[in-house]
């Protein structure tokens, strides 16, 4: 009976969580692309690990330190997630918390549901494990032992996360949060040894769970016998986290839970989108009220562009872009400083790398925010006599303008500071913003209608990034060639012309396609 209830809750949670994926085959296809997209880098990483392990003069102690640092990173993320307390979706409140289900049964179901839900997103870890074990030729019994050890550790993390979240919700004590934060800092502190050889703190000196696990795993890889201390250490942490879990699961924490007004993290319903945007509008509208929508605009396209600019100002989109580039400026400055101190670090190459990455993400940010803001408001222009193609044109022009203008200002400032020619970075920004904005807008509108609107935004974003990246191959190739061949500005200017023409051609193609899609939207 009891296990039946746990199974029923588990099934319900899984169905709700993956509800949006079940709603359309496109979502499933995009999820598959998303999952497969990690494989090349996972295999590359596996090769790197294999070659490091097979090195004749491998420094095993260093590997233990590095692996412990990575595992500590995971533990810290779990602790930080637990800081916000215990959360529950609205349906859990109305369906489960009002039924005779005990907190312990609910928590057991949640534990297995959390594990299942994380699989589509954490699968690279398992693929990496499989690929590495295979290429290192580790024996099946050792492989199984490593696998169960990892699963055992994941359970320990989940026990800890759930228990600490509930303790935080139940007692709401500042000292508890402070203690967790201190533990996070202490957990990550030994990782500094990787940056400075003089740093005295080492994972191998601490009775940290990540030390026990990494030493245990690396001993298996190098066919060394495991130390009893590591086994006892890991077991103690596991027993402690299980005991804590059993203790908190006996408490009635249902009244202390913070409710999330979503059905699942991929919930795309109107109410959820509105709630998400309301917060940002409240924050940013004060500054945005300086500018208003003027009735005097002569051209309708100009008016629509102004309206979208105002939206971006008030819903925080513009701030996000600016903030994004502030981070880039800071990173660039640090890179420059370290470059001056040590060997000749190619600042220009860093510059190009950051710009090409950032300027591809910015159109996605802008288009995604538009989707969140206007998801349910699209009925307004669609029921007017306005040709919807004008809306897509206004949107695209705005996105291209913002995605190129903000970084262009940053690039000009940085080029003056670091005495770098701004020509190629500016061409790169223009090309990526034109291609990125048009492909992102096209795909977002394709998924706007009734049939596909349940597709989670992050999957559409992933597909858009992939498409933009593929279409920008000529831009990237020419930029890399120019950077490594150290071509002068005259040649760069010459190769920029076909690049920009190519980008405009892509933009015109997708603008037409977007127009065809927007007139067929059903809401």
């Amino acid at each position: 009976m009891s296990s039946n209830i746990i199974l029923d809750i588990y099934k319900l949670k899984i169905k709700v969580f993956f509800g949006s994926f079940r709603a359309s085959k496109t979502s499933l296809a995009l999820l598959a692309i998303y999952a497969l997209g990690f494989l090349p880098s996972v295999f590359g990483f596996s090769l790197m690990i294999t070659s490091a392990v097979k090195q004749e003069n491998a420094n095993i102690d260093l590997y233990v330190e590095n692996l412990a640092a990575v595992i500590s990173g995971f533990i810290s993320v779990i602790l930080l997630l637990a800081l916000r307390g215990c959360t529950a979706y609205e349906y859990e409140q109305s369906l489960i918390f009002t039924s005779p289900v005990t907190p312990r049964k609910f928590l057991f179901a949640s534990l297995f549901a959390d594990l299942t839900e994380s699989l589509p997103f954490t699968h690279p870890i398992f693929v990496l494990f499989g690929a590495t074990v295979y290429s290192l030729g580790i024996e099946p019994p050792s492989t199984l032992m490593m696998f169960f050890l990892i699963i055992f550790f994941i359970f320990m993390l989940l026990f800890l996360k759930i228990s600490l979240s509930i303790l935080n919700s139940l007692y709401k004590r500042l000292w508890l949060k402070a203690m967790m934060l201190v533990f996070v800092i202490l957990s990550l502190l030994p990782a500094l040894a990787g940056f400075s050889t003089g740093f005295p703190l080492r994972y191998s000196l601490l009775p940290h769970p990540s030390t026990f696990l990494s030493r245990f795993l690396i001993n298996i890889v190098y066919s060394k016998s495991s130390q009893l201390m590591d086994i006892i250490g890991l077991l103690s942490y596991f027993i402690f986290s299980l005991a804590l879990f059993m203790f908190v699961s006996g408490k009635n924490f249902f009244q202390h839970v913070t409710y999330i007004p979503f059905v699942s993290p991929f919930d795309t319903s109107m109410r959820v989108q509105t709630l998400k945007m309301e917060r940002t509008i409240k924050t940013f509208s004060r500054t945005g009220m300086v500018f208003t929508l003027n009735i005097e605009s002569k051209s309708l396209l100009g008016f629509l562009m102004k309206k979208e600019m105002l939206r971006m100002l008030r819903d925080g989109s513009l701030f996000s872009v600016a903030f994004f580039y502030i981070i880039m400026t800071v990173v660039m400055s640090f890179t420059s400083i370290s470059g001056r101190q040590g060997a000749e670090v190619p600042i220009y190459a860093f510059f190009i790398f950051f710009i090409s990455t950032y300027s591809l993400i910015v159109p996605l940010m802008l288009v995604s925010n538009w989707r969140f803001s206007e998801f349910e408001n699209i009925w307004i222009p669609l029921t007017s006599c306005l040709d919807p193609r004008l809306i897509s044109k206004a949107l695209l022009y705005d996105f291209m303008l913002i995605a190129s203008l903000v970084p262009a200002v940053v690039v000009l400032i940085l080029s003056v500071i670091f005495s770098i020619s701004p020509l190629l970075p500016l061409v790169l920004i223009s090309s990526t913003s034109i291609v990125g904005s048009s492909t992102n807008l096209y795909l977002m509108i394709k998924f706007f209608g009734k049939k596909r609107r349940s597709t989670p935004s992050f999957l559409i974003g992933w597909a858009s990034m992939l498409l933009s990246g593929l279409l920008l191959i000529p831009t990237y190739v020419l930029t890399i060639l120019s950077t490594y061949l150290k071509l002068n500005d005259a040649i760069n200017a010459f190769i920029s012309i076909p690049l920009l023409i190519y980008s405009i051609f892509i933009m015109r193609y997708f603008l037409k396609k977007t127009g065809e899609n927007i007139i067929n939207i059903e809401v």
Partner: protein
Amino acid sequence: MMDRVIELLDVWKAYDGVQALRGLNLEVYKGEIFGLLGPNGAGKTTTIKIIVGLLKMDRGSVRVNNFDIFEEPYGYKKFIGYVPESVSLPDYLTLEEFLIYSGKIRGVPNEQIRERMNHYINLFELTDKRRALILSLSRGMRQKIAIAAALIHDPDILILDEPFIGIDPAGQHMIKEIFNERVKDGKTIFISTHMLDTAERLCNRVAIIHNGQNVASGDLKNLQQLSEVGENATLEEVFLKLTEEAKEPIIEETAERKRRGFLGLIGRKI
């Protein structure tokens, strides 16, 4: 002969295999308040969304102000104003900005936008809220703003899906007054509602739809005769009788579907 401003002929619409409209026929005349009634899932919102261009029909024809909406998908929209069932407005705009935006996209000259905007803001007693973000306004206020936006271009036909939900009694009274005023000027009001007593008092004619078909349409007298519930019967009694009767062919249809299999009935006119 009265002018037909909205005409639906044999309109079919299905969502994911579920047939929402099954050859719906409907006529709305100029200068009347027309009520579209029906139980939940009857196809009222689908019908309205097809008329205003938010949904595409699978089959049939729709004419609005003599425009075939399939042939001319934008032109006819300057003659209609629409308020949906769940009103969602751009939270990041102020009331005034939203009305300007609504007027601009409907091609209203600036002077008229200003004039009508001031008129409706005063009428709906929203003067102190004109520079407030829509985000900060209550549901009733949002509904009033949506109605003001639908009227900003002075449309010939006003189409509203459940217009009285969330509006206080005074607001409802004011909206009914607006409807009556517009009808006096020869404009048409098309509303969908569950509030049968309101429909009885407000509408000149109604259509009762059930399972995507027009079960009956006309004024109350016609419907009383058609349903044979007596001349003193209320619209509610008429509605219940007609929708109950309308269930019978559906039951027969379900039995037939079971006999022939679902594919045998797809696209068949019932």
